């Protein structure tokens, strides 16, 4: 999808976004919806003559540290939001990834992009996903109408929660113009235990033991290939604690004692610990080849070793496990055979898959997400026609012909 530059509209007001959608509707012209377009290679290519970008719709509109809420326009760079939060020792709870380094890109993500794609990082295992922290949205429907859902308070069950519906809808149900998120204090200190394990099953057992402890683990990853820059030989299980300094010291000590029966345990504190988790968050240890494909598989953690074994059998898969083993990052050749193996492994394990990145030749030819059961697919079609009756927002982004 290479939209010519003059075909990109980037309004700097919400009303401008609404007008652009209404114009597209009047002309019956589909729109590719994006922030900075950095995730174009994700899921399926959109066939649209015009692009509507929210990149010019920027700025933090409300930040109340003591109320744990921040609101910003959709085009605000995530980095800007993280910097504002860091000034008050707070953070985005879901720890969304910044995948620039891996993909050699220059620009960083926008808020609308990470919410539109519901991208969460390592803290998702105990802190919740991006979608768990979206308190409110403003958006423009496919009819060019502005609507709101949720609000700016932490607890709200008023009406149907359209925030959940639009989070992770990849711009197919509306153009997000403003998002309000719940935030949290950043832990005063952080430390990581690295446990050398003989194989993946043993690594999952380490993570399960850590997550079943009362010590408030906030990250649980397994690096089958290790991570040389941090001096970690694979396979290695990583367990993170973030909290007040006294607590981190105490809990790392208790956990270390509890996990030492699994293998040699070493400790990373402060900067090296942060570096390790930044790498996991951004899928750096996956070492994906630029021309290859990248998948994410979501399964019950105990099913992950089976998934990994099946994939390694099918193709030279590179792997990275996060969320206690519940998230399997996979990279491999961008072929229909490899994709079929991913689909089969996810299905056998009762989980889901996403073809996260692939050359168009592959992503346009296969199902990038699992099929939905027929009754849900029918409901999905009706929901789409409620919010985008003419089907002009990101047609084909998630599924062919939808």
């Amino acid at each position: 999808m290479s939209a010519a530059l003059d075909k990109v509209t980037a309004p700097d007001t919400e009303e401008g976004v609404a007008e652009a959608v209404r114009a597209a509707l009047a002309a019956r012209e589909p729109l590719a919806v994006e922030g900075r377009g950095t995730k174009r290679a994700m899921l399926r290519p959109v066939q649209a003559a015009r692009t509507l970008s929210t990149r010019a719709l920027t700025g933090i509109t409300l930040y109340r540290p003591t109320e744990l809420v921040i609101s910003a326009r959709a085009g605000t760079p995530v980095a800007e939001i993280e910097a504002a939060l860091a000034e008050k020792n707070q953070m985005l709870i879901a720890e969304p990834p910044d995948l620039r380094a891996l993909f050699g890109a220059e620009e960083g993500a926008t808020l609308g992009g990470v919410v539109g794609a519901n991208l969460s990082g390592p803290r998702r295992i105990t802190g919740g996903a991006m979608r768990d922290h979206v308190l409110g949205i403003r958006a423009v429907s496919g009819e060019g109408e502005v609507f709101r859902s949720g609000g700016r308070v932490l607890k709200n069950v008023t009406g149907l929660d359209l925030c959940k519906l639009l989070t992770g809808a990849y711009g197919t149900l509306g153009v997000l113009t403003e998002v309000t998120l719940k935030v949290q204090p950043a832990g005063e200190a952080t430390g990581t235990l690295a446990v050398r394990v003989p194989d993946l099953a043993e690594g999952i057992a380490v993570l399960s033991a850590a997550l079943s402890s009362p010590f408030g683990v906030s990250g649980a990853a397994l690096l089958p290939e290790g991570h040389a820059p941090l001096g970690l030989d694979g396979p290695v299980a990583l367990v993170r604690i973030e909290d007040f300094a006294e607590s981190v010291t105490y809990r790392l000590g208790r956990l270390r004692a509890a996990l030492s029966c699994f293998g040699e345990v070493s400790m990373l504190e402060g900067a090296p610990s942060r570096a390790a988790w930044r790498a996991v968050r951004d899928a750096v240890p996956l070492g994906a080849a630029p021309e290859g494909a990248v998948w994410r598989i979501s399964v019950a953690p105990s099913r992950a070793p089976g998934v990994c074994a099946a994939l390694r059998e099918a193709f030279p898969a590179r792997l990275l496990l996060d969320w206690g083993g519940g998230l399997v990052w996979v990279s491999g050749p961008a072929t229909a055979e490899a994709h079929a193996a991913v689909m089969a492994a996810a299905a056998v394990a009762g989980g889901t898959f996403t073809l996260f990145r692939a050359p168009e030749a592959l992503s346009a030819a296969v199902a990038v997400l699992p099929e939905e059961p027929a009754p849900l697919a029918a409901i999905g079609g009706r929901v789409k026609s409620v919010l985008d009756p003419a089907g002009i927002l990101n047609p084909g982004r998630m599924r062919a012909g939808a």
Partner: protein
Amino acid sequence: MGPALSRVALADGEAQGHFDPMIRLPPPKPEILARRDGILADLGRLLPEDAVIGEAIRLRPYETDGLSAYRQMPLAVTLPRTTEEVAAVLRYCHANGIRVVPRGAGTSLSGGALPLEDAVVIGLMRMNRILEVNYDDRFAVVEAGVTNIGITKAVEGDGFFYAPDPSSQLACMIGGNVMMNSGGAHCLKYGVTANNLLGLTFVTIEGEVVRIGGQHLDAAGYDWLGLITGSEGQLGMVTEVTVRILRSPEGARAMLAAFSSVEVAGQAVDAIIGAGVIPVALEFMDKPCIHACEAFAHAGYPLDAEAVLIIEVEGSLAEQDMLLNRIKEICDRFEPISMKLAESAEQSLAIWKGRKGAFGAVGRISPDYLCMDGTIPTGELPHVLKRIGEMSAHYGLGVANVFHAGDGNLHPLIMFDANDAESFRKAEAFGADILRLCVEVGGCLTGEHGVGVEKRDLMVAQFTPRELALQRAVKSAFDPGWLLNPAKVFPLEGNEALAA
């Protein structure tokens, strides 16, 4: 909620009873009422004999829920034991254009489970089995009729718990929790129901059974799990729920801090959170509430205080000490009247005793009360409490305020006398004024009890007509004939789907 209160919810056009009806229900479908015997017979063929109720005396327990001010006898009640039976009833009702009202334990405080005259109630209390507990992957699969406490009871022997803990947890069921997206005293740290779910078995109004989510964290595609959670029975029925279970903390301890003004207590809350401390619970009580609780529980609450904070922390003993001391140092800056740090589990219980009994305590000083449930930005608390005080004087009705101070969820308890129609009318008007105020200051109508019938007509204060139309259209995408729990959540006004 006073048991003495009985008020009939009347359908449009029906003769009025003793009181003016405060809540309108859509006109019943005459052809359905006329076919009642045939419908009961059909249901009797679909389900085991003991699963269908038609006699008035056995229908009576289902005529109301936690909002007992409103009562309405249903057409029939069914008590299925399996997902297939639920699907069969829904399929039949859908084919015959019969409305259904799903029901868990019936503890809804917003009238969410209030029947309709022409509706079949589908009660899930017999689906009460724990199907699977998995500690390796930290989830439990339970049927929708398992009580909230039942989940924790099933796993606590192994050191685990299910986090959301509504005060009604002994009675309310996980299916009801999912549909109301219920919270609890500990949701500041652990989140509400929506944040603790992995999957559902969902039955559409057509009677199709679909599995949503599973044992994994991320859905691929639209977030149906998120949309269905908190949808108040508008989109379909839930028969099985996969919840996350968590390892219990090493221990927990509470403290109490009393302040000379509401403003100062609010500033102390801000300072605690501003310092990066997120306690597991952070509860606020105002003076009328403190007095009611103290008279009831003799918990040792200071009666000269204008506001009391109950704060709970978790961790090892040393961690509890560390956190409580940090919080104490912060509170010290706001010249508290008194502070009490629990030194044992017993002392923690004593501190909590008054708060946990708050509703009962208010029930002792007033024959009846309405429990409201708005959310406000926490910074607005002093202003909101001042305005509530003014309203209380205006209506001549007492009010006691409990507040989940960390997340802004306010529960004013409005005291009235149910034997006095005028008093009830005033209490409802007072409650509506409070909720409008919550919206006005940037909050919302309901933080955890749901819209139900109670706040249905106030939805226009929070949403534009177009926004409401959009939400209604999303419901229609699931339930085109508006057979599922109609007359709840959305104002009747302007709703073509329910027009006679």
